[in-house]
């Protein structure tokens, strides 16, 4: 991971913690499906994406949800979107 993606990850984890305050984000595995690791239902997941959208200003169409499985996916997605808005 580059410094850039490290920063994105850090912010993503802060936003995730707001949705799931009981989770120790330090222990999360980057390549494992996030929703099962953190027990996010569809409402939590939508709220997580809304907070990413608000914070980074990226548009996340529903058709992209399938690409966002692990934390790595989320960070890479944000990185790509922010590079080419």
């Amino acid at each position: 991971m580059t410094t850039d993606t490290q920063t994105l990850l850090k912010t993503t984890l802060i936003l995730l913690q707001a949705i799931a305050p009981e989770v120790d984000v330090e222990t999360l595995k980057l390549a494992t499906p996030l929703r099962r690791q953190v027990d996010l239902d569809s409402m939590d997941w939508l709220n997580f994406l809304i907070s990413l959208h608000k914070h980074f200003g990226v548009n996340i169409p529903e058709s992209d949800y399938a690409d966002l499985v692990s934390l790595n996916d989320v960070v890479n997605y944000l990185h790509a979107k922010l590079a080419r808005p």
Partner: protein
Amino acid sequence: MSEFKLPSLGADMDEGTLLTWNIKPGDRVSRGQVVAVVDTTKAAIDVEIWRDGIVNELLVKVGEKIPVGTVMATLREVAETEAAKPVLPSTLTPPPVLVMPEHQKDIRRTIAAAMSRSKREIPHYYMSETIPMANAMDWLSGKNEKLLISERILSAVLLLKAVALALKRTPELNGFYRDDQFQASTAVHTGVAISLRNGGLAAPALHDVGDKSLAQLMPELSDLVKRARSGSLRSSEMSDSTITVTNLGEQSVASVFGVIYPPQVALVGFGSITPQATVIQGKVRVQPMLCASLAADHRVSDGHRGALFLAELRDILQDPKALANEDATAANQNRKCL
């Protein structure tokens, strides 16, 4: 003079500890106003008052543990001369203190007590139906594509609305069984099973689901989930559900058969929506499918009526546009009411 009693806080709750009073003697209160906060093993509940009046005396002290039905306060009638006066907010409105219970054992015990009672008293019957969801999911994606992320509608909301509409055909699944008889409810207040992050589960009511549009229901559901988890539900939400819906499909299980919350008489369970091979007019086609189950009370209905309900639910979900039209009708009715 009338008495204000601690209302029922749901089937699994028979006592609570008073955390705060939001009123004091002499205050004018109106129906629906949150007058106290009571801690249960699950969460802090905002207790609403069910009639207008003037507070005469508060009979319970903060910190006291009281059973449901305890007289908490006495109320005087609003005299006719006073009735014209505008309602002034109480000067004594301390912020509700939230005490999230640490005791997981208590939570398990209360859930176990309610579910044991249900299984002891209610002769359950179960059935399920696999529902094709291609039309509904296509329609919903089309709708969501045009919406901002903050306005997008979850499939869970579509399912809640479809259940409320399907109940019109089988009213014997919607209401309460009390004192050896069934009372059907015209309104559909749907108890939504919500897993709490500290363990346990609550099923607070989403009110009048049949009469609201999807656009209205989505933020209300979002708010209900948020408040269930932060421990600020209202007493009416804990006690007036007329049916419960559980959506364990979220966790990718294929189907779920639930235990009815007394005094309700039915529970609808949804599994996950997953692509499956189905045979349509002799041809195999892959499309999203959903397993919907019904647990219902044999004292009130039988399997034939239960099957009619599931068939109606399936039909409603095949025609999502009609659901949308239903939206327009609901919106028109709301306008008329205003």
